[in-house]
């Protein structure tokens, strides 16, 4: 009835309605995109070694991530891809494969809350190397970070740089000339799955118990390991 | 039943509200608000006794954390005196001695301001900081929120005084003001507030109750934080 009397008004209503639905659709689309956004996954290159197929994962940890991330003051892991360092904590690794990990740590000592986590577990050979020296456990007060994939039973403490060491790194990514510790180890990825990895050292400066901010944000001290 | 496309009003037939309504609303409202106030500070009372009974790691009140007794007493006494003065002033207003009420009202305002200033001084001369245990936390939180509420109540007292001063020459029961939406309703005249003096009396009765409650809470604060 009204349509006959007020066709123009109905057209207006339809137009307003369509605009509203379109705007809502766009907003919801943006919202969902925002939520799904995370660090881009990184696939380390395959390598050939004596024991068969393996991959090399090269990481560095920096005290402040600087221009590489939105939160410049936060501590973070970086990966090396084609010789350049960038920030990604989502890694894709092949299943049942050896992973050779090299971590260059440029960050100072923070100390573990639970000293138990200062002993390495789940590694091939049971030990890791600090600057080439095989080690099973470090003093919990010397720990700077840990590299841990609890789902795979892997945990490795990362030795911190002494406070009085010369040439402390200022800006990320840190050049190799600055003071650092090199941690190397090998672990075997198990069956395919989606795992998390994290740091267990309360290294988030300024947060209560050192466990906020970068320690609770994927992309800094937390990430995913996709074993495929 | 008749249908109306556009709700409209024939103000000729609209009945007025009973004149005593505003006064009743204010009185009931102030009593309800007072009960709310009690629960605001119940949370802090609970926190105080709960943390004191737990005394985690003996850190509730470490040695050397003691409140500034002198300033605390000044705050409590000023608040109590202010409440007494205001109640006395409300009696004057009801007995048509509006000049006396204004005098006492200004006195109550001044005393409360002294209390606020004393509290600020107490904060700035504290021998302890927010990190010094459970007592320090409760002390700062409780006095902080309480001072915010005192300042808010002072605003109300100030509006009462301002109204009284503006209409100081109007004889009791006359002082006609423009009819409007005092009760928040645009659509009818509000006979209860046409008279500024009447409004003043009603608000004062309500404020006295709230202010007394605030003072009682203030004294309880003093007893718990300083004497207990």
């Amino acid at each position, binding site marked *: 009835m009204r349509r006959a009397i007020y066709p123009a008004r109905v057209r207006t209503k339809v137009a307003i309605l369509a605009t509203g639905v379109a705007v809502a659709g766009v907003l919801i689309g943006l919202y969902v995109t925002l939520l799904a956004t995370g660090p881009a996954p990184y696939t380390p290159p395959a390598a050939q070694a004596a024991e068969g197929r393996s991959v090399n994962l090269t990481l560095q940890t920096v005290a402040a991530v600087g221009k590489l991330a939105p939160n410049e003051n936060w501590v973070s892991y970086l990966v090396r891809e084609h010789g350049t360092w960038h920030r990604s904590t989502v890694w894709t690794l092949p299943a049942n494969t050896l992973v050779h990990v090299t971590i260059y740590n440029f960050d100072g000592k*923070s*100390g573990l*809350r*639970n*000293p*138990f*986590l*200062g*002993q390495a*577990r789940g590694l091939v050979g049971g030990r890791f190397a600090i600057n080439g020296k095989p080690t*099973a*456990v470090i*003093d*919990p007060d010397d720990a700077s970070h840990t590299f841990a994939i*609890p*789902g795979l*039973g892997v945990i490795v403490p990362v030795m911190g740089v002494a406070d009085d060491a010369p040439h402390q790194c200022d800006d990320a990514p840190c050049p190799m000339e600055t003071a650092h510790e090199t941690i190397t180890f090998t672990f075997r990825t198990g069956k395919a799955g989606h795992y*998390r990895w*994290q740091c*267990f050292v*309360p*290294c*988030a*400066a*300024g*947060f*209560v*118990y*050192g*466990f906020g901010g970068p*320690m*609770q*944000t*994927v992309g800094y001290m*937390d990430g995913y390991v996709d074993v495929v | 039943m008749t249908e109306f496309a556009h709700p409209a009003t024939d103000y000729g037939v609209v009945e007025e509200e009973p004149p005593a309504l505003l006064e009743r609303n204010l009185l009931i409202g102030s009593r309800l608000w007072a009960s709310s106030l009690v629960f605001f500070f119940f949370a802090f009372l609970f926190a105080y006794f709960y943390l004191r009974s737990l005394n*985690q*790691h003996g850190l509730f009140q470490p040695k050397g954390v003691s409140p500034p007794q002198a300033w605390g007493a000044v705050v409590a006494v000023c608040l109590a005196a202010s409440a007494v003065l205001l109640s006395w002033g409300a009696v004057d207003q009801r007995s048509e001695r509006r000049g006396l009420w204004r005098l006492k009202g200004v006195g109550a305002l001044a005393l409360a301001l002294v209390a606020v200033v004393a509290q600020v001084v107490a904060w700035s001369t504290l021998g302890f900081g927010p*990190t010094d245990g459970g007592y320090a936390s409760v002390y700062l939180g409780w006095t902080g929120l309480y001072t915010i509420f005192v300042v808010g109540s002072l605003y109300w007292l100030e509006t009462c005084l301002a109204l009284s001063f503006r209409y100081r020459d109007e004889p009791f029961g006359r002082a006609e003001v423009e009819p409007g939406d005092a009760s928040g309703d645009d659509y009818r005249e509000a006979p209860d507030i046409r008279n500024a003096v009447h409004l003043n009396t009603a608000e004062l009765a309500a404020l006295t109750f709230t202010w007394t409650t605030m003072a009682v809470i203030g004294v309880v604060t003093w007893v718990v934080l300083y004497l207990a």
Partner: protein
Amino acid sequence: MWSRRGHGWRIAALTTIGTAIVLPLVVFVLGPNMPPGKGTPVATSQVTDNTVLLVVMTPFTVFILVYLGYALTAFRAKPGEEGLDGAPLRGHFRSQVAWLASTTAAVLFLAIFGTTELLADNGAGGGAGPNPVTKPGGAPLPVQVIGQQWEFTYRYPTYGGVETATLVLPVGRKIAFHVTSLDAIHSFWAYELGVKADANPGVDNIAYVETKKISTFHVRCAELCGLWHGYMSDTGHVVSDADFASWIAARKRQFAPVMKYLPKYSSSYNPDPTFRAG
């Protein structure tokens, strides 16, 4: 039109028949399958508890559903009655008293029953705080559960305070879980054991259980504790005494290097940083 008394009798009859049908199903079919299974005496008594709750609820539930169904069939407005009202009934003293009496009886029974179960089972597997009201006899094996962001680790104070990343328990032993946390609030939930106890920093929250058979159980964190809360899960094992002895010996060897760094066993820990890390 049926008489109102007739309605009452029919609802009563349907409720009785319904209860008579449902109750055996609840007791014999549903009840034994209630969680968390019969892994331990505590879990078994939780199953019993759940069954008793179901039994008490059944008559009320059947009554309400029968009543709803009946009312919607019998008391629907028939065609032609649209303009008519129902009977102006404003209450019925005796049925109100009957309802009040039956619900009160049920509630008091449940409260008394729950309290007895709680005390008889030494906290029924729930965290009972640092000083439980009732304790099991004998000397339960203490196992400390340490929650941290985001992993549970376990300490065995009677085995030199060795700390492990997995939970293994000997069979046929009373266990006292001492649950604590190093940071946020976690909750130690060993589902098949029927144990749940919050892990609070600075608190020794004790839960008792007795292992009954060799089995595997799931451990999950049941209190939102931050980013990886959803990943904070674990599998535990109840093993024979011999297996337990060899397992704990192996752990002592494996974790010998870190032992010297572990703090002395304590009911709770106070690690740095206590405020904001700097």
